[in-house]
């Protein structure tokens, strides 16, 4: 069974559209994350949730809104997509806080905005 799964794997859409990426983990972890990896492979944290509660919200445009219906799911909704949003988005989870525990990453969602 896949530990951390994301859907879709690829997403191609036009500027101005709204799209969602879903993430699920079956590891029983309390904490989930969204990361953005740009074309230069730089990986930057966007959001972190612990038991459905937002604990990290980096400087991310308001067009990005995470939603955690339960601690096994963390979805990412993006409004009014822009060209600069093109990147690979990774979901991750950890047992407790990242300060002490390794993170498990999903396979990534490659978003292309045209």
């Amino acid at each position: 069974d896949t530990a951390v799964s994301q859907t879709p794997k690829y997403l191609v859409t036009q500027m101005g559209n709204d799209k969602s990426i879903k993430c699920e983990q079956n590891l029983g972890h309390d904490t989930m994350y969204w990361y953005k990896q740009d074309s230069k492979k730089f990986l930057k944290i966007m959001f972190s949730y612990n038991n459905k509660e937002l604990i990290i919200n980096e400087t991310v445009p308001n067009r990005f809104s995470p939603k955690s219906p339960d601690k096994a799911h963390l979805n990412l909704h993006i409004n009014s997509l822009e060209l600069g949003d093109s990147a690979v988005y990774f979901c991750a989870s950890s047992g407790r806080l990242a300060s002490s525990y390794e993170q498990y990453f999903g396979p990534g969602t490659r978003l292309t905005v045209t």
Partner: protein
Amino acid sequence: SQQGEEDPQALSIQEGENATMNCSYKTSINNLQWYRQNSGRGLVHLILIRSNEREKHSGRLRVTLDTSKKSSSLLITASRAADTASYFCATVNMNRDDKIIFGKGTRLHILP
């Protein structure tokens, strides 16, 4: 701001040789982690070393941490073709929230 900085940015070695990658950081840390990313895949955790540890081993991996120099190294011994990947260090600051900061990575290519 960028915390971990890996060095070199890219490294090509012959299969069987040892590969060494370095990571430098700027602030006091709780721990430092190394991850591997194969092309088109998510990151995979390799090893975590705490701030009070100096060296850690896992199979063919050896990680060192020098908190006085704010640096860490990852050594992969007897490299294999399957080790071709990007390697990232990640740090968690002391007295900060749960934010883990990744470096820009070292791209390792093992030549047959």
